């Protein structure tokens, strides 16, 4: 016997069918496949059958160890220093490679280290590239989500006015969203180009030639910020439109009441606009966070993760491993980890922004 849900909604189910079927085929099934593959050694192309390997892929990615390096000492026990007075340490490869005394360090590489007295404490990771990708992705999200949401709100407030020709501004702000991200990335590559790039030229002109050209995408300290700036510019129009929809949902009677009560501009925003945007804000925060975690095309086109892994991110690594290096299980494992991260953060955001 059919339940009321299926019987009463036959037409509804029929209409939903194409969408549900496609989503099942292209999102839900691959999603479960990724989890399954991450427990095997599945390859993209191989005559060898895939085998179940348990959580090996996860430990290969997430393995971390801490190790304290003691300085090299001469016969009298004094610390050896080089010409610059820096303490000399034995090379880590002596411990991490073919050294049966330190099985927990085998195959690991230095991730970062700090000085403590004469000793140097080193944090080693099984997969330093993955760790850097993890950190870069979080950095990207932490900067992009608030800045992009804030800028989008400012733009939305600016264009939410009844002025002549305001549609021109709306179109201009929204334009980057419509252009393919690959095209945008290629164009920005020219803008960031060292030497004769547009940005360097403009900065040089503004400072009357005092500005020295910067290789924006070729330096470890400017590459990721450059990509952040470009991503914010590209995405801000989309979220502006969502804010705008939220703004236009606020009843004009509230503003009229505020005006009668003599509210100032800031008070109007603080006590009428902002509370009215509550649900929109939650939506935008979650959407931007998820989009920022999925950063891929800009990296693929502009830097390929370089220089020195300063722009490695999770999705790029998943694709690079899965397709580039034919390691489907490795790529799947990164996807699975990314899913857990995004889910956790979304749940936390939902909890923090819940109706009280």
């Amino acid at each position, binding site marked *: 016997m059919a339940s009321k849900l299926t019987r009463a909604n036959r037409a509804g189910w029929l209409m939903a069918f194409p969408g549900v079927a496609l989503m099942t085929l292209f999102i839900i099934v691959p999603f479960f496949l990724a989890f399954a593959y991450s427990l095997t050694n599945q390859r993209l*192309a*191989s*005559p060898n059958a895939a085998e179940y390997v348990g959580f090996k892929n996860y430990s290969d990615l997430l393995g971390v160890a801490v190790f304290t390096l003691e300085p090299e000492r001469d016969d009298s026990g004094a610390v050896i220093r080089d010409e610059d007075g820096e303490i000399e340490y034995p090379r880590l490869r002596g411990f991490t490679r073919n050294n049966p005394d330190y099985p927990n360090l085998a*195959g690991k*590489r230095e991730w970062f280290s700090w000085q403590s007295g004469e000793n140097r404490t080193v944090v080693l990771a099984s997969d*330093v590239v993955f760790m850097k990708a993890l950190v870069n992705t979080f950095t990207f999200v932490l900067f992009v989500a608030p800045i992009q949401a804030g800028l989008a709100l400012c733009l939305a407030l600016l264009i939410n006015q009844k002025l002549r020709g305001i549609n021109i501004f709306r179109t201009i702000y929204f334009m980057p969203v419509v252009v393919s991200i690959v095209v945008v990335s290629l164009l920005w590559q020219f803008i960031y180009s060292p030497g*004769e790039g547009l940005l360097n030229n403009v900065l040089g002109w503004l400072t009357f030639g005092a500005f020295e050209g910067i290789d924006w995408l070729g330096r470890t300290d400017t590459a990721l910020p450059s990509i952040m700036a470009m991503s914010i510019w590209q995405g801000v129009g989309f979220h502006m439109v969502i804010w705008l929809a939220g703004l236009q949902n606020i009843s004009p009677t509230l503003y009229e009441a505020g005006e009668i009560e003599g509210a100032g501009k800031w008070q109007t925003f603080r006590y009428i606009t902002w509370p009215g945007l509550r649900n929109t804000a939650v939506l935008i925060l979650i959407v931007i966070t998820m989009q920022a975690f999925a950063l891929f095309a800009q990296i693929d086109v502009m830097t390929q993760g370089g*220089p*020195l892994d300063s722009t490695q991110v999770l999705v790029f690594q998943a694709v690079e491993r899965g397709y580039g290096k034919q*390691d489907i299980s490795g790529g799947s494992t990164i996807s699975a980890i990314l899913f857990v991260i995004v889910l956790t953060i979304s749940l936390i955001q939902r909890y923090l922004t819940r109706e009280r």
Partner: protein
Amino acid sequence: MKNLRHATALAAIACAGMAQAQTELSLWYHGAGSANAEEALVNQVVADFNASQSDWKVVLETFPQLAYNDAVGAAALADELPDILDVDGPVMPNWAWAGYMQPLGIDEAKLEGFLPGTIGRWNGEIYSVGLWDAAVAMMARRSVLEENGIRIPTLEEPWTREEFDGVLQTLKDTGEFDYPLDLGMAWKGEWYPYAFSPFLQSFGGDIVDRDGYQTAEGVLNGDAAIEFGEWWQGLFENDMAPGTSQDAADRETGFLEGKYALSWNGNWAALPVVEKFGDDALFLPAPDFGEGPVIGGASWQFGIAKTSEHPEGARAFIEFAIQPKYLSAFSDGTGLIPSTADAAADTANYNAGGALEVFYELSENQAKLRPVTPGYIVQAKVFEKALADIANGADVIDTLDAAVDEINEDIENNQGYGH
């Protein structure tokens, strides 16, 4: 009028009848939208073959090069491979191992005199053959070298490492160039292992130990490799060559415009150099870093898909395509090196005294295949990243160690790649 219509109908039936007699063979090719005559030439070979006999009809489908390997991989998973495949030389062992391809089955006598880089072997059998090879040379200008008192190296006596380092310093000191040497760092991807692993091999290292292809330990991180890595890093530290953020446009035209004194580039880029500098243009052999001068060999080749139901037809097409006249035609149309000396004699650029003749000798004398192993696809990517990182200032030994670990782990995960 009515008669005419009858005649057309008859002709149509006749055509259909002919087409039925010929069994269709599919051919995939990587050169869609190529800038030169490559695509037209492939079409020509296919048309000639179809007209030359009545058993087979080859149907050509071309792909953009960047999407080609992915298309083949996807087709293999879906069991939709064409009969005849076009395959990049170093990738062939991977496809053969993964079961995409079957041995050619062509009589080896027919391949006599072919350049070593044009024949693809895996596990003792020939899987692919190419109509051309490519070679890399140090492009230079005679006038620049002579003005600065630099010896012009020959195949017999290439520059040694000390000499080459001295040449770079001399050219840098002139102050006439942005950089003395252009390595083509803007060309990400296969260019890195293709163009730069020969330097490593000349130092005495390699990407992987070719004795069994089971490990890179001691080869990619041995003393020779570390020496190479330090030399490599020095090129960028001392501003001898533009690094990984080189502008792609500068790579294309920098040497022609005089921004660089030397350019490490392939023969496909040689014709514009000859046009621009005429007799002043020089194509010099690779420097000898200790273990002899080396350049990379092997380019795109033809092979037969394992799933092909008509391998004899595919074989007939490939045998047809490797006739000397097509080798010459491809060379004339694309500037690539024809696979045999006979064909070379008939070309515009590689005949005796031709503008690019030197490349044939380079290919014949210095070419070394990239590691012939299914794992090459991964190893090439690891090598590329290691070289980019070292160029950007990463610790040489740690970077090479990490590359070795990654390569070894991949070999292990693939159960030795069937060697």
